[in-house]
């Protein structure tokens, strides 16, 4: 135990300093929190605007889609809080400051992940958590030990899957550098996809967001399983239980991409 504490001490010191620095500009931090909450709120409003004029989309009614939104947004925001700053790697690559990480006797990826933490995402996670609680309350959930386990499994797997997306994107930046927006298409596009009823997707979207980047497994499929809905023709209703498999696949993809990226990296020169 003492050994673990000693080994994680440098990471904890960095994270604590990052948290302190964010809270030190109080007005800006408060505005940051409020704005982040507003981001989540407006995204929920977009869903509501569409459902105002139709009863159900892809087999989900408004109550069910609020639950999908809650699971997807809560897990994405928490992953964004812990892993979102991996997005800054193109800046490090261009400026050559990534090389500083190499000088420290710690694993590169672990350093990058623990180099920052975005506390403002807590506000957005709050919106997601509220949608989740409201969603669980207004839907007709048959509560049992297995349904509780399913929700817990979905939350843990969703977090892991979205976290893997950030790591995958960071690995791909070693090749792209200027093309960060290409990975945004799948990281932030993935978040958008995760809040949708996947039954409306056409074939290319099923391939990309159903399986390659398993976004349908983060929220939509667990909710279909939880509510006992029929689900889309191309996926059986029990598939929600396979969310951890999707998370493992996402991490496999992420770590392989990261490894390839690091091997490709030639240093910043200078």
């Amino acid at each position, binding site marked *: 135990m003492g050994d673990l504490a000693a080994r994680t001490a440098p990471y904890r010191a960095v994270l604590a300093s990052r948290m302190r620095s964010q809270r030190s500009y109080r007005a*800006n931090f408060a505005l940051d929190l409020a704005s982040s909450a507003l981001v989540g709120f*407006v995204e929920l409003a977009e869903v509501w605007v569409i459902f105002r004029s139709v009863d159900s989309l892809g087999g989900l009614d408004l109550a069910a889609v609020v639950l999908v939104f809650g699971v997807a947004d809560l897990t994405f925001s928490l992953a964004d809080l812990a892993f979102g700053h991996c997005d800054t790697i193109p800046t490090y690559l261009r400026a050559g400051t990534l090389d500083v990480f190499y000088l420290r006797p710690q694993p590169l990826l672990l350093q990058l992940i623990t180099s920052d933490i975005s506390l403002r995402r807590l506000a957005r996670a709050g919106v997601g958590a509220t949608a989740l609680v409201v969603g669980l309350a207004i839907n007709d959930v048959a509560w049992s030990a297995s349904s509780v386990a399913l929700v817990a499994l979905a939350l843990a797997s969703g977090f892991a899957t979205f976290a893997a997306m950030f790591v995958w994107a960071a690995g791909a930046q070693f090749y792209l550098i200027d093309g960060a927006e290409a990975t945004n298409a799948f990281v932030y596009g993935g978040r958008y996809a995760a809040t949708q009823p996947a039954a409306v997707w056409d074939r290319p979207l099923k391939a990309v967001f159903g399986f390659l980047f398993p976004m349908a497994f983060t929220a939509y499929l667990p909710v279909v399983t939880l509510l006992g809905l029929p689900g889309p023709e191309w996926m059986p209703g029990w598939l929600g239980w396979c969310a951890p498999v999707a998370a493992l696949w996402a991490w496999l993809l992420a770590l392989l991409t990261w490894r390839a990226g690091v091997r490709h990296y030639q240093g910043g020169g200078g």
Partner: protein
Amino acid sequence: MFVRTYARLFVAGFRRQSTYRLAALGGLVANTTFGLLKVALLFAAVDAAGGQLSGYDVGAMSAYIWISQGLLGSINLFGRTDMAVRIRSGDVAVDFLRPVDVHLATIATEVGRSVFALLPRGLPSVAIGAFVVGMSLPDDPAAYVLGALSIVLGIVVSATTVYLVAATGFWLVETRGVEILYMVVSGFFAGLFVPIRLFPDWLHAAATATPFPSMMMYPVDVISGRVDGAESAGLVGLQVFWLATTIAAGQLATRAGRRRLEVQGG
């Protein structure tokens, strides 16, 4: 002479953007992915509503989706600008020493970059939409002329409005909170994810009281032929109104900010 200076800045912005080819390709990938996701969701919504959703059929919805995705590279819905960075770092003091109007020079450069982005991101997005998904477009050539004017106005209004966000930096220094606020409101009211016609009346009224629909929603409505005749002329008129308002505000903010500017460090 006056016009030539700003025309050169426009060309400089245009050429600067043309060097970021990989970034443009990345942007196109993002536009297409989001476009396909929007197609899936909004087409399903149109179907569920019985083929007509607030005046949009599938063809009009497709035109909305792909034209708005195509405009994304050219209008600023993020709130981040180089100008905000220059004000924070104090570099703007150097800009004030140059014999040009800082406000207009910034706008000219931004508009140049935005107009270039129509080539690698705007046209391909619309082409993908037209050929892969299919969309309805107007037959009347006059609609395209007015549509082109409306798109240019939208790009300029975007640059003049986001300049105001940067200008708050003269007073606030750190503008990230304002930028995020701008990002949230501008995207929603510009019709980024849902056409503002689908909003309930009170929300629609709130959106039209801001310059944001002028950046994306109105140009899309005009060039897609969803509105025609007097109505599209009215939308272009609204864009001109917001252009004049935001330029006047930008001039005032720059003058007041110049007196307020405090550059830290030596």
